[in-house]
């Protein structure tokens, strides 16, 4: 379905291209590289693709044009071996090359699988370099399976905290949740491509907001404005509907999107700024878009804070895709929440006065973020709100089991 956004090159607006907005998808680490490789097959024509890795072998087989091997001296083309620290040092070593890679890019999509070495260690560095070069950074990060062991989980958590500190938006995709969407008889390739679908849908919907000719477009400035905060929590959900009741079906499917039912989102699905992208067939009309806007903004945000974009795709009829990306501001009205994990140290910044100032300016913000960014599980205790926590084996048993296990419930 992802090529839907791109199939029709005629709809591409020349005027916008003249502004010279440059988008780049960068996959970092083993998992990230693979994701970019597979997205390339999805034929997203106007995106520049790049991959970064410490592992020579993986890079060699990648079909992507722009390939960068980092940490040449450190690992000699071998992988980081699952060590976050080595991944980070490799990125530090190749900082200049990374900077060259992101120079002149306005919007960087960073794809990374957290939990390993290169991805977890180098991604925060790359994100920071990209920011310094003035790019907007949106990261899609997969989180390791629960069964992969606590070490990988810890590494992923630390890396996620570091990423949230430097990126404009971090969209997390827990593998545990993605795998649930997969049928019993799917092959590994099918399973992987379904997981990648989540990412390519996100990338392509932002792409189509900016480039595709549609009913309502969003310019880059507005997008950048929406994502002006770092470290907040990012909501991400997709809905798809077809038939005569396409709007209702799409809304229902959005409601059931497993990524909106992660435990950390459960307490509040409200976002301070919401980006809503509606793509439909030639029969998509304003009334349908309005209905979706009403329903979605009521659920996630208020209308004033919703950035709406709508596009038509001439190749389909009676089909609607909805993408929502929500960002929570620091000044949100949500209750004060306690951050659970201490963030990993933000990668060390070298010299340059400007960077130091940038950091300083961000510091007071971050204090507030810690109050807000991680909703506590206590919000899900319902009836047992005012009783003592019922802790067994590190879990509060008063919180519904299905939430703690991220089971998908359709109502």
């Amino acid at each position, binding site marked *: 379905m992802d090529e839907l956004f791109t199939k029709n090159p005629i709809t591409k607006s020349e005027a916008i291209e003249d502004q010279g907005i440059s988008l780049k998808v960068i996959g970092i680490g083993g998992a990230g590289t693979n994701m970019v490789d597979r997205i390339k097959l999805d034929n997203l024509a106007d995106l520049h693709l790049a991959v970064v890795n410490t592992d020579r072998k993986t890079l060699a087989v990648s079909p992507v044009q722009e390939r960068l091997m980092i940490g040449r001296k450190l690992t000699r083309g071998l992988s980081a071996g699952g060590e976050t620290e080595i991944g980070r040092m490799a990125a530090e070593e190749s900082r200049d090359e990374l900077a060259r890679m992101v120079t002149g890019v306005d919007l960087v999509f960073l794809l990374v699988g957290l939990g390993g070495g290169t991805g977890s260690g180098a991604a925060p560095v790359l994100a920071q370099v990209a920011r310094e070069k003035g790019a907007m950074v949106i990261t899609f990060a997969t989180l390791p399976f629960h069964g992969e062991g606590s070490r990988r989980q810890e590494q992923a958590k630390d890396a996620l905290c570091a990423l949230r500190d430097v990126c404009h938006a971090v969209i997390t995709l827990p593998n545990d949740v993605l795998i649930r969407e997969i049928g019993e008889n799917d092959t590994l390739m099918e399973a992987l491509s379904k997981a990648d679908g989540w990412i390519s849908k996100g990338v392509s919907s932002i792409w189509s907001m900016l480039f595709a000719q549609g009913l309502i477009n969003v310019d880059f400035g507005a997008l950048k404005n929406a994502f002006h905060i770092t470290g907040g929590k990012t909501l991400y959900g997709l809905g798809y509907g077809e038939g005569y009741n396409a709007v209702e079906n799409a809304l229902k499917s959005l409601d059931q999107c497993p990524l909106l039912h992660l435990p950390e989102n459960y307490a509040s699905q409200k976002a301070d700024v919401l980006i809503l992208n509606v793509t439909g067939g030639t029969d998509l009309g304003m009334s349908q878009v309005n209905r979706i806007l009403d329903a979605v903004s009521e659920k996630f945000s208020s209308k004033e804070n919703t950035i709406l974009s709508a596009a038509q795709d001439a190749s389909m009829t009676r089909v609607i895709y909805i993408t929502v990306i929500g960002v929570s501001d620091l000044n949100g009205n949500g209750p004060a929440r306690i951050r659970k994990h201490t963030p990993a140290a933000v990668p060390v910044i070298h010299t340059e006065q400007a960077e130091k100032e940038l950091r300083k300016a961000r510091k007071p913000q971050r204090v507030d973020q810690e109050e807000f960014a991680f909703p506590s599980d206590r919000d899900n205790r*319902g*009836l*047992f709100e005012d009783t003592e926590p019922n802790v*067994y084996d590190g879990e509060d*048993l*008063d919180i*519904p*089991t299905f939430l703690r296990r991220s089971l998908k419930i*359709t*109502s």
Partner: protein
Amino acid sequence: MSQKKIIGAVEIGTSKVVVLVGEILGRNSLNIIGMAQTTSMGVKKGEVTNLKSASDSTHTAIVAAEKSAGVSIDSIYLSCSGRHLDGFSTTGKVAVSSSDNVINRADLQRVGEMARTKALPLQRVYIHHILGGYKVDGQPTKNPLGMAGEQLEVQYWNVNADQRKISDQLHIINGFGIKVDDMIISSIASGCVAASEEERDKGVLVIDIGCGTTDFAVYKDGIILRTGVIGVGGDHITNDLAIGLRINYKNAESIKHRFGKAIVDSSDKNDTVLLFGDLTIGDAPISRSSIYKITHARVEELFNIIHNKLGSLISTQNLPGGIIITGGSARLPHLCEAARQAFNVNARVAQNPAWVTNPELKAPEYSTVIGLLQYAMTAQRPDSGGRKKKNTGWFGKMAGIFAGN
């Protein structure tokens, strides 16, 4: 000689307060002559959270029970539950004192004291010392008195509780001018009703899933090996449903009663049920599979926690009597099947004993309070010398609590 004694049994549960009035005639005859029940207020997860409302509902129930029996109750057996209950095992070991190596009463007393006198942390009190059997020179035996041997060993399972929570409960009864004869943990009370003597001999696990807590006890060779409480009960299923289906608590409770099921089967995957079922405003379809998934997740987790806590005690060899499930939540359909899946041991829902003639009391949620009466009857037997001693011990402890206050 037939001596008549009136005994009250009170369970201050999470959903309801039940009071039974029993008449004990002679040694083995027990009649239930009065009962009353009120909706419990101020109790969550088996613990008193609001003393005033819990007192009020208990007093109402006691008054109503006295009225229905036409007698006044002067002493009460009280059940107790809650996550604050804890247990540990102790052993005592002595050399047999007499020269001919025959074990006498003094030896038993010495070894018992040794095992029972372990000091507790501050604010904790013992509720029960459950005798887990003797060993004479390493050979297990039930009654070593008069046996010959050099070394006598005894094992106890010691149940202890948070002193403040226990005194809260006692205050409720004492505040009404009635004395508490003994306090029995719910798992033991329901265990002695739900499982027959034969089953307790063979080995059985009794799980009492109430509204706010789940109490369990493992029996083997007629003695209690292990007890435990988990602060999860039927309320949690309701709460899970309310959050998961985004409906209010009252509707969630009704959905649980009408459609709850402890296992998920794929047959009714796309089926939906109606929230109210009468098509009034606000009635909405709810997918059956969601209800089952939420319920199953909770039940499965609960059984897994019990399994973890009991470890190797759970096996077909150790539990030929299987698993008996009782308590209000035992009404949840297919619960036994879920238990079989989790424990790999046969499971059934408890039935209250035949001597309970009142049809209302046949329901599994009354097994604790019936167990209290049954326990009271055995405690009243004049020949149970050990029991009497324990009662005084109990009063001694409680006097200590109040002196401490």
